[in-house]
């Protein structure tokens, strides 16, 4: 009888420990503008810093006024091209390039056209409409806005580490090129250096 009691108590204790060990994870919503560095790798703060720098620089650039002057007030049309990540980490440039695109649209100073897969999807939708939409609502081929400029970029990094110390340098470059002439009209860069001590 005594032995049964001990077994029951032990079972309760073990199950209690198991339940408590399962509920140690805590998740808290934080402000997206908060800086939280955990591993020292590229994170949302770096992306935000790049986006802030690029949006300010690209809209404040002289290329817009030059274009407006040359084209008699017609706003420049931009398409987003490739960004090459040549750093040592997986970084998706879309997190900051989207911010730049958003500023183009919201500022109404630059017109943005779709490229890549999204443009292909649009053309496929147009093709579908040729057979299925009413004649009045059907969209026609050959009336797209041709881009004046293409936005391209690259991400590079340098890592210097010894024992438990590490310095990581990131350089993000975006550049805007005139599609007709291949002339680079704007280059923006953001350099970030991190010191990590393990």
């Amino acid at each position, binding site marked *: 009888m005594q032995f049964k009691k001990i077994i029951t108590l032990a079972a309760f204790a073990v199950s209690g420990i198991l339940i408590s060990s399962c509920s140690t994870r805590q998740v808290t919503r934080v402000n997206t503008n908060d800086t939280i560095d955990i591993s020292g790798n590229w994170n949302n703060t770096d992306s935000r810093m790049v986006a802030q720098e690029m949006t300010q620089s690209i809209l404040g650039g002289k290329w817009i006024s030059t274009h407006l002057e040359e084209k008699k007030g017609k706003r420049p049309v931009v398409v*987003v091209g490739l960004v090459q990540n040549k750093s040592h980490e997986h970084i*998706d440039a879309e997190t900051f390039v989207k911010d730049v695109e958003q500023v183009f649209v919201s500022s109404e100073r630059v017109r943005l056209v779709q490229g890549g*897969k999204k443009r292909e999807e649009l053309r496929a939708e147009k093709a579908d409409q040729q057979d299925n939409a009413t004649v009045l609502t059907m969209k026609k081929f050959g009336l797209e806005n041709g881009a004046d400029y293409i936005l391209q970029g690259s991400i590079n990094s340098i890592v210097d580490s010894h024992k438990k110390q590490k310095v990581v340098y990131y350089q993000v470059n975006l550049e805007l090129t005139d599609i007709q002439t291949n002339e680079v009209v704007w280059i923006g860069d953001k350099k970030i250096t991190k010191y990590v001590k393990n």
Partner: protein
Amino acid sequence: MKRKLVISSLCAVFVLTATAYGQQAGLVTDQNPRYEISRAKYMNVADSLTSSQGTTVQNTYKAYDWYEAREERRKLRREARAANAGNDWFYPSVNYYPGYYNNWGYGGGYNSWGRHNWRRSNLWLGW
């Protein structure tokens, strides 16, 4: 016969001149008259070249990190010990080609039994 030959030659010269003139007439100011060569080349590949627009191409490299390399070495050592535990005395894991994959040409990471020499090897660099 001779007359026919002269007439056909003149016709050919006329057609060629007219074509060249027509091409020149279609050019805008300062446009390269041989632009059609480049146009023909890129018209065929435009779809494949623009399909990844708006994306990030990942050309990453592996950076040497002393601390991470040490952790990785330790992890591999533990795994190797666990794998060899119990049977390596009787069946040593002989590597018949020590240093085969070593770029430096000699089997720095392996001893004569083909067993890994953890002090001399550098797993981060792959030998």
